[in-house]
């Protein structure tokens, strides 16, 4: 892929990731008075709490998916890495080696948080509260991983500041 194409694609992915990250931050801001989340808070089912926790959980999953599925492979291409036939394990190991992510295992843990909150198995309210607190903590880590990658790409000469579409 030629550089201009790659830059354009990168900006498109970052635009989407930025949207998820911003909504996560917005949800966190509104939930912070209630953190740490207790089973009692979840039991009372307060509407205001539900809107923001749903946003936090949904956008955490979306950002994690987008980073792993799109941003990570693109990032390696931006670094002129050959990624044909790369598995996710190969991608993570390479990103760790070149310092774009701190730890492949940390990413895998974030992935499992994302999978656990998507799980349909009936749990207890106590476990729901524990999972929500975990998403809260991991969302901060996820955003810091995202910002680090953007920063590193920027330092290497890539534009990481997408403009909103002309129609907005």
């Amino acid at each position, binding site marked *: 892929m030629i550089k201009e194409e790659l830059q354009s694609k990168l900006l498109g992915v970052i635009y989407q990731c930025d949207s998820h990250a911003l909504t996560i931050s917005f949800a966190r801001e509104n939930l912070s008075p209630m953190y740490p989340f207790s089973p009692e808070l979840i039991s009372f089912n307060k509407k205001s709490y539900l809107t923001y926790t749903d946003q936090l959980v949904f956008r955490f999953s979306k950002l994690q998916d987008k980073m792993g599925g799109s941003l990570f492979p693109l990032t390696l291409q931006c670094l002129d890495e050959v990624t044909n036939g790369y*598995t996710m*394990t190969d991608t993570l190991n390479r990103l760790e080696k070149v310092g774009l992510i701190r730890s492949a295992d940390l990413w895998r843990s974030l992935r499992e948080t994302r999978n*656990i909150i998507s799980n349909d*198995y009936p749990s207890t309210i106590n476990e729901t509260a*524990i999972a929500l607190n975990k998403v809260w903590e991991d969302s901060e880590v996820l955003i810091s991983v995202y910002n680090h990658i953007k920063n590193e790409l920027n330092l290497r000469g890539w534009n990481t500041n997408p403009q909103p579409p002309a129609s907005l």
Partner: protein
Amino acid sequence: MEYKPPTTGKPVRLSEEEIAAINQAAKTVFGDSVSVLLFGSRADLTQKGGDIDLLLQLPEPEKSAFTLDNKISFLVRVKKGIGDQKIDVVYDDVTKTNPTFLEMIREKAVLLNAVK
């Protein structure tokens, strides 16, 4: 894929390597007393595909190991061993998992390891 019978003698739809990786990860994270059972479609030879559904059991005094962080550590270890498959883990603990659901899955769960 070879169908290797676990210690109970009932075959399941996991390879020997997958069973070994799951058991090793369980022991590392939860200790030697952990029992690992397979339930769901992979415990049924007549079905195809499906997630790997695991039920973990510990003696009562050791159930404090059933934490979310340990579940995540276990899953990371298993997937490093067998690849990125869809795996769901349920703790056999009524304070953490719906008791009716536990009753239902215990009936058909197949032991993957032997407690030594």
